[in-house]
């Protein structure tokens, strides 16, 4: 964002505008990435340590297709398909056999899957950073009321809002979303109605993975494309999920935006403490509201 330099009042307004612009755009990235993670935990009880690598896998799938077609929309679709497919395969092959075991086994297996995905990316694409340009249509900046905003960040805010709303509507308003939630609550009843519950689990995991993947492909042109990109963001994503409340969809939205904005204002006004702000929030939430900001009811009844 380009700041005009005028009066003292303008300087303080500048800071607020800068903080909100940076914070909301970064917060929306956190929301979008964390949505899939909290979806999988909220509906299935699985803490997926490979979520960051699904984010990276989506970015790389998009990168490959963008290289072939030069079309960013195709790249996004490719990321969604790749993310869903990898997630579905993970659920069937390594998560499903562990549903009856201690959660520790799921942690270990998803952690192992994360390492394998990073290595596969390095073997297939290469370890070096790859150029993933911002599409021409979304590059440049937009001027509003004397302030200049990066077009791609505005696009990220809008796209993130649409995608999160779509997921919310799907889970709470669509027939299949209701069946999925019912299957988690009362498996036998839903099975007796003729629905395949295993398929619902696979779909949920795939959907959560697809959301990670689409976040990855949308973020890559701005933050760069490299094999460890998922590992770099995953800690902050877990902080968002913990602050929001494990499994809470509403919590992820509020916590993601809150952390994005708090960190952004921190970088402007207390830069020495900015990086610690999300973790201070997390510690405070764990101490005083262990279930998270919205973690009481969970995604199903929100």
């Amino acid at each position, binding site marked *: 964002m380009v700041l005009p330099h005028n009066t003292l009042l303008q300087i303080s307004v*500048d800071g607020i505008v800068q903080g909100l612009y940076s914070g909301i755009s970064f917060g929306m990235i956190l929301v979008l990435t964390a949505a899939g993670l909290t979806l999988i935990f909220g509906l299935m009880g699985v803490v997926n340590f490979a979520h960051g690598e699904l984010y990276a896998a989506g970015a790389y799938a998009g990168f490959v297709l963008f290289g072939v077609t030069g079309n960013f929309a195709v790249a996004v679709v490719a990321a969604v398909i790749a993310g869903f497919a990898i997630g579905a395969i993970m659920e069937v092959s390594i998560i499903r056999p562990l549903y009856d075991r201690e959660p520790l086994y799921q942690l270990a297996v998803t952690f192992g899957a994360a390492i394998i995905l990073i290595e596969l990316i390095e073997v297939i694409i290469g370890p070096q950073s790859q150029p993933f340009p911002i599409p021409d249509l979304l590059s440049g900046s937009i001027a509003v009321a004397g302030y200049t905003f990066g077009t791609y960040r505005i696009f990220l805010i809008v796209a993130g809002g649409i995608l999160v709303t779509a997921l919310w509507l799907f889970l709470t308003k669509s027939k299949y979303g209701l069946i999925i939630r019912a299957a988690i609550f009362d498996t036998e009843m839903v099975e007796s109605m003729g629905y395949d519950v295993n398929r619902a689990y696979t779909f949920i995991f795939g959907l959560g993975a697809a959301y990670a993947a689409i976040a990855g492909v949308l973020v890559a042109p701005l933050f760069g494309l490299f094999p460890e990109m998922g590992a770099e963001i995953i800690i902050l994503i877990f902080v968002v999920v913990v602050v929001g409340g494990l499994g809470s969809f509403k919590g992820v939205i509020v916590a993601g935006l809150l952390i994005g904005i708090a960190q952004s204002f921190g970088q402007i006004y207390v830069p020495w403490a900015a990086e610690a702000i999300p973790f201070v929030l997390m510690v405070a939430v764990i101490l005083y509201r262990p279930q998270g900001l919205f973690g009481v009811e969970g995604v199903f009844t929100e």
Partner: protein
Amino acid sequence: MVREGLSRRDVLAATGTGAVVGLAGCSSDSGNGNGNGGGGGGDDVFRVGLVAFQSGPYSAFAPDIQDAFEMLIDDWNDMGGVQGMEVEGFNRDSEAAPETAIQRAQELIDSEGVDMLATFLSTDEDGGVMNVGGRNGVPTVTCATGARLLVDEQCNPYSFRAPTSTLTKAKAGAAGGVDLFGEEVFQLNPDYSWGHEIQEDWERTIEEAGGTVVDQGWAELGASDFSTHVGAIQDADPDWIQFGFAGSGAVAFMTEAQQTGIDIPQFHHVAYEPTILGAGSSVFDETRVYTPTEYTYDIDTEANQDFVDRFESETGRLPGLAAGQAYRHIEAALRAADGADGTGPDTLVSAIREWSGEVISGEYNMRSCDHQASYPMYIAEVDSADDDQIYWSVEETIPADEVLASCDEVTGRMECSVE
């Protein structure tokens, strides 16, 4: 000939998914080591061990390091070896973990009986391996980092630092930046020990060169969102930016700056090609990106051009900073060893610490006072880039004595001894 240990990636590449989790991270030593410990194989082979980060966050540098090391060993065997002995290279992956680096260095000494160790590691890893070399009496040459910690606190009589210190690079870059672009500078550096070292050294040398730091920012190592920092830069309106990130942060920052329309020249403390390549060619079309560097393929010596041609012919790409550093620093140590009267550790140390001569990049001296290599520095600019390659041009050559801290200055603050 170069023998390589089995890396995590090798295992994964060979066996695919699923079943390999238990094997991840394992490494085994191949080769027919003679089991001599304490350096020196005792037969007609001169053994050189390399411990380098080749997987993990620095894995992008692996191809350059591996290819350069293999080429160097082949070149020496083609020339008749060291003191007439065949040169055998042993390459081990530190996985970017200090404990692994230490383990690999000890294995090279115990199992392979290496006569000399070389490293291409981060500061923490390097400190550990330098200690291993010192404890075991094996000459050890670092090729990647000249952080103050290694210079001041972790030196020992068997360790040699080939890369220049942060202060030397800052001296070269600050003077060049003030001269080329102006006096007002914005500093943006990673918020950890090395980042603070970079910031302090650049601020000091910017002021010595007549410049002023108008504002500065910090971001955590691994940061990807630089929008508030870009806003602060725009607000400060400096003549140029001193930038201390080398990895993914560099790509994210350059992209963000380009998005916001900032085309202020950037001086990167270090610019490794495999990472900044990710910013895409259009960034370099619109923004002037410079770095004070110890090596680029554009260094105009006959030996370097021969090396560049052969490297490109064998690998299909131009040698990057990592390749040049690995090749020429180990080359200098081998040249010193070749002129020694034997391969005993103390004989090799005496030969390396007094050595002066030519390597592919030209003049190269090892200072006995602090075991610091001395050679010219270069101001390089990114000319252009495509999807696979960064193209450099050398803008200025700076003699070593203009930027290297004096023996008195360095030894005055050293808390360890190289004697």
